[in-house]
């Protein structure tokens, strides 16, 4: 551990240098307040400083105040070592930021005890700072990971919304197909009616052709025979036409039966879409719950981070008050409900 000595008295320098060396410390000697400040103002300065009060340049009081105002969280344990021995002097030094006050002539055991106290405090502060830094680093990493997870949840929620929309589109397309099929079947129905009329007509032609055959017997000679033959052919054609018509009507009736089946499946499909919507709503509610949990966790992490910063400040560390970046959560805003 490095210990700064700021004193203009050569005897004090010799005494302190040799004693510190004997106790296992590394002495950094300065013979004026200005020289000491050049060392103490640096970031990585000695953590323990033994300051004389009266010396050339800045005096001990000014030095102590400057160290305490320094924008750094490196704590310096300050021991005043001075021949000023009035109570008000001790109070002034402590108010300026001294941790302990040793009167000259120095009693080495007393000084050694104060230095050891300083070492303990510095180790404690350094350990605490390391713990605090690690904690803040872990909180920040956790927070960043949570932001990524939140992004993934939002993406998943969006994907679910898209899938749901596609299912709805498909259902709509199916309904449209059924409408078209219905129109087609109606046309077929009309055709069927016409065919039924044709069947009746062919029946009538059959009867007429039978009558024509009877009438032909009254005609003598070859003309009567020829007329009877034509009437018979017409009758045969009418019978064939009647059979055809009957066959077509039968097929059309099958088509009508298929329509009933197809329309029956419409209900099944609509039920499936409804179930999908239900599933989506359940999923969506889960996403919302997860999002709310993430929000709470984020808030707790920010509170924990703030507590850690507040603790550092309470502990006398001059820390940079860097808060976690707040990100509004979001899946709720981005997911469209049915």
């Amino acid at each position: 551990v490095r210990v700064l000595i700021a004193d203009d008295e050569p005897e004090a320098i010799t005494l302190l240098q040799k004693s510190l060396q004997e106790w296992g410390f590394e002495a950094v000697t300065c013979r004026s307040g200005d020289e000491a400040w050049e060392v103490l103002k640096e970031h990585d300065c000695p953590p323990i400083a033994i300051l004389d009060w009266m010396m050339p340049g800045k005096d001990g009081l000014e030095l102590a105040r400057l160290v305490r105002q320094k924008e750094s969280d490196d704590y310096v344990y300050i021991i005043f070592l001075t021949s000023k021995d009035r109570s008000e002097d001790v109070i002034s030094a402590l108010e300026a930021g001294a941790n302990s006050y040793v009167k000259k002539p120095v009693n080495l055991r007393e000084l050694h005890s104060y230095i050891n106290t300083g070492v303990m405090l510095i180790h404690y502060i350094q350990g605490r700072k390391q713990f605090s830094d690690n904690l803040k680093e872990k909180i920040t990493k956790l927070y960043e990971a949570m932001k990524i997870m939140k992004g993934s949840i939002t993406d998943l929620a969006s994907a679910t919304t898209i899938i749901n929309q596609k299912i709805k589109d498909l259902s709509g397309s199916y309904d449209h197909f059924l409408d078209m099929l219905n129109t087609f079947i109606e046309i077929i129905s009309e055709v069927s009616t016409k065919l039924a009329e044709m069947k009746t007509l062919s029946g009538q032609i059959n009867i007429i052709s039978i009558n024509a055959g009877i009438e032909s017997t009254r005609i003598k000679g070859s003309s009567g025979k020829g007329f009877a033959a034509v009437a018979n052919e017409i009758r045969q054609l009418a019978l064939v036409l009647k059979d055809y018509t009957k066959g077509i009507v039968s097929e059309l009736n099958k088509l009508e039966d298929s329509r009933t089946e197809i329309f029956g499946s419409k209900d099944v499909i609509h039920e499936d879409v409804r179930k999908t919507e239900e599933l989506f709503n359940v999923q969506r509610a889960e996403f919302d719950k997860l999002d709310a949990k993430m929000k709470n966790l984020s808030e707790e992490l920010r509170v924990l981070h703030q507590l850690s910063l507040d603790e550092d400040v309470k502990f006398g560390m001059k820390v940079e008050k860097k808060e976690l970046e707040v990100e509004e959560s979001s899946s709720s805003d981005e997911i469209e409900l049915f």
Partner: protein
Amino acid sequence: VADKDVFNIEEPLKALDNNMDLLKDIAQTFIDDCPHKLETMRDAVASGDAERIHRAAHSFKGSISNFGRNAAFHAANKMNLDAREGKTDTAAADLQELEHEVEQFIAALRDQVLAA
């Protein structure tokens, strides 16, 4: 028999946890730096500036205090206290007294510490 008013070796030895080597080191440092200290005192007194006298006497007193509260310490402290209150009329006489006491003190240091 050593004059305990000039130098009582028990006092610094107690403060220095009976470390004779350390006492020798600071005694040698004091003796080496003493001419410079006295010169500073003389200049301060010659200037008649109470603040300068106070600073020089305070520093001198501090150096001697490492060896106990002997006659040289009291002489330096008198100059320190007087000058702190702006009193300089006896400074020249006090300085003579101080130089006399310091001379005896150094002799005692050489005899009881450095030669031991």
